[in-house]
């Protein structure tokens, strides 16, 4: 490839990295979902069994991992809307770059709104 090349339209840019993040967050949430359905199913076993397992969600390490999970949910959901707009909105492809930064801004804003309260709950 020529050194004068300014790169490709896609590779290494917002289009690629938004896709990588969408995929990583999606896979992570899928595996959490499998665990979460199983732990919730314990309410059908006994109150004590459910309470023992749900206590692990209140530990500092898992409590912090929940922050990552919430961040993943926020990004994946909002970027999913961006993908849908790229597909269905006539100007979607034109504004995909700007929409990515809107997605990041809203993700960060909602995360910053959520995180302090959750951290206080986990560590108190």
């Amino acid at each position, binding site marked *: 490839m020529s050194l004068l090349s300014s790169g490709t339209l896609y590779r290494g840019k917002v289009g690629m990295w938004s896709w990588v993040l969408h995929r990583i967050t999606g896979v992570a949430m899928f595996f959490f979902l499998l665990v979460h*359905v199983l732990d919730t199913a314990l309410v059908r076993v006994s109150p004590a069994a459910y309470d023992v397992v749900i206590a692990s969600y209140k530990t500092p390490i898992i409590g912090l991992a929940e922050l990552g999970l919430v961040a993943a949910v926020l990004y994946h959901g909002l970027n999913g809307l961006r993908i849908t707009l790229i597909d269905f909105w006539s100007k979607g492809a034109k504004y995909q770059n700007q929409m990515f930064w809107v997605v990041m801004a809203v993700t960060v804003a909602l995360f910053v709104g959520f995180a302090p309260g959750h951290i206080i709950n986990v560590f108190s």
Partner: protein
Amino acid sequence: MSIVIETPNSPRTRSQANLEKYGWVFMRISGPFLIVLIFVHLISNLVVPDGGIKAIDFAFVAGKWAAPFWQWWDLAMLWLALIHGTNGMRTVVNDYTEKEGVRKTLVFSLWGVCSALILLGTLVIFTFDPCPAGAAAELLPSFCPAVQ
């Protein structure tokens, strides 16, 4: 290496509806629903209750599922999230597997796990007893009749 494209000028003919297209449409329809379902799920479980995650226990879940509203809410979330997630994982598997046998086995396993968890979750939501006999009273929601 040259790629041979057979009859490049003839349109694709389909004898049946394109399943791949329905999957694509499903992701875009279920997505916005999942945003509302999961955002409200997170707010009502982690933000609204005093103590957030620390407040979640059997009594909390039982209190929610005593209302049909939350049963149906969680049922919709269960079905849509699992189908959306499994279809997403299917896309990932299709992208990264080289051998057809491996791909088919993984995709088959994904839908097997998906069906099993949908069945399990649906049964749990609708056969759930908020005041099971024999359980310690302090673990139960306050509306359960006191057991002597």
